[in-house]
């Protein structure tokens, strides 16, 4: 819960330090919007990653690298090295299917989903999946469950921008979208041999 409050503040603080005057589009993206419920106006203020990734062209390689290094430092690694054993793939499946939470029609009590199926295929039996991200059918069956793969996947779920600064994927842990335990459930959905993802 603390994280939910802290993450937007952190976003805001990094912006307040920026001395550059607002560009016309930055101004418009504030003045054309209003706060509604949990969707507050500070959502219209970009952090460094968002600003760098807001055009058709990617930033140069050095900028990408610097952004990724900074994002990597925000990743909170799992307590006791428990990547997925303490998670439940059934809970992970619910989180993967749910696209709920964080809109102005939700409340602070809404249990957020991960919206994974919006962009990724996971369970080969579920054909209703989006294609914005890569298909992840048979995730652990194909990749195994070495420390390296587990760590990468946890990090990617927590803050995808640490691996690709301009990834389309939300920063689930960093942004307070999912809790640590929710991420562990999603990890179980990806890694548990009993999960339908690996069938």
């Amino acid at each position, binding site marked *: 819960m603390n994280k939910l409050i802290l993450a937007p503040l952190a976003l805001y603080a990094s912006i307040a330090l920026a001395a550059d005057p607002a560009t016309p589009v930055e101004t418009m993206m504030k003045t054309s919007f209003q706060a509604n419920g949990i969707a507050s106006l500070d959502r*219209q203020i970009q952090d460094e990653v968002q600003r760098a990734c807001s055009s058709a062209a990617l930033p140069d390689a050095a900028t990408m690298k610097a952004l990724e290094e900074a994002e990597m430092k925000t990743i909170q690694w799992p307590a006791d090295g428990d990547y997925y054993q303490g998670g439940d793939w059934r809970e992970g499946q619910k989180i993967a299917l749910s696209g709920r939470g964080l809109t102005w029609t939700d409340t602070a009590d809404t249990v957020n989903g991960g919206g994974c199926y919006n962009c990724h295929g996971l369970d080969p039996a579920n*054909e*209703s999946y989006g294609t914005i991200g890569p298909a992840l059918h048979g995730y652990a069956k194909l990749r195994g469950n070495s420390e390296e793969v587990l760590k990468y996947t946890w990090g990617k779920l927590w803050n995808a921008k640490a691996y690709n600064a301009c990834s389309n994927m*939300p920063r689930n842990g960093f942004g307070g979208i999912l809790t640590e335990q929710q991420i562990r459930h999603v990890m179980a959905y990806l890694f548990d041999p009993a999960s339908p993802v690996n069938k």
Partner: protein
Amino acid sequence: MRKKLMSVALGATIASTAPAPFAQELNFDEYRQMLADGNPAELFEMEGEELWTSARGPKNASLEQCDLGLGAGVVAGAAAQMPRYFEDTGRVQDLESRLMHCMETLQGIPSADIIKGRFGRDERAKMAAIVAYVSASSKGKPINVDLSHPKVREMYELGEQAFFFRAGVMDFSCASCHGEDGKRIRATSLPNITTAKGAAEGWGSWPAYRVSNSQFWTMQHRLWDCFRQQRTAEPVFGSDVTIALSTFMAGKGNGGEIVWPGVKR
């Protein structure tokens, strides 16, 4: 007229019972064709035509003197050329913000009430019906927005920047979903609005009747719900960002065919 009404009503009945089998559909085009001769949006068009010609509001006037850019009262083909710059307001306006202006100046209906209102309610619901009528009067025409006008060009460029502007708790921009060919969210196909073809597909098929909730959605409504799902703050009705994005989509799609009103899931 009565016969038309009946066939439309029948279409609406089919539509209201049809969504369930289509919940998983990946084949919506076929369904759209089935509805092409009885698009339930026709009910909204008829209501909108009546609203256009009815004396309403504190000034008890109709909208028949409303200038949508082709002269007072000219409806045919007008929406195909919007957004456009209007001398009398000194602004680039889309159909909805222009209608809001006409409703205020001709009928005395305060714009503030519409801006503060909700989609599907009160004057905003009436405006949606008028949008159905006016936009359908451009059906089959090519999108034709005048990008040579400096004010329109300025809005287009702001709209393009807004399209790529990432914000909110999920870091999304419009481009996150509408920036590549052949992508889907779940089973729903997404037009690539960075191309002329995709922009025309997006701009040219809204406003539309939405089968999944039996509602008629204008482009303002469509954009509002896109931003909701992007997890931004709430865009103000008729605000600059909505006009800028509309100008970008319409301008990018110039020359593409208009199928207003569309039919959507």
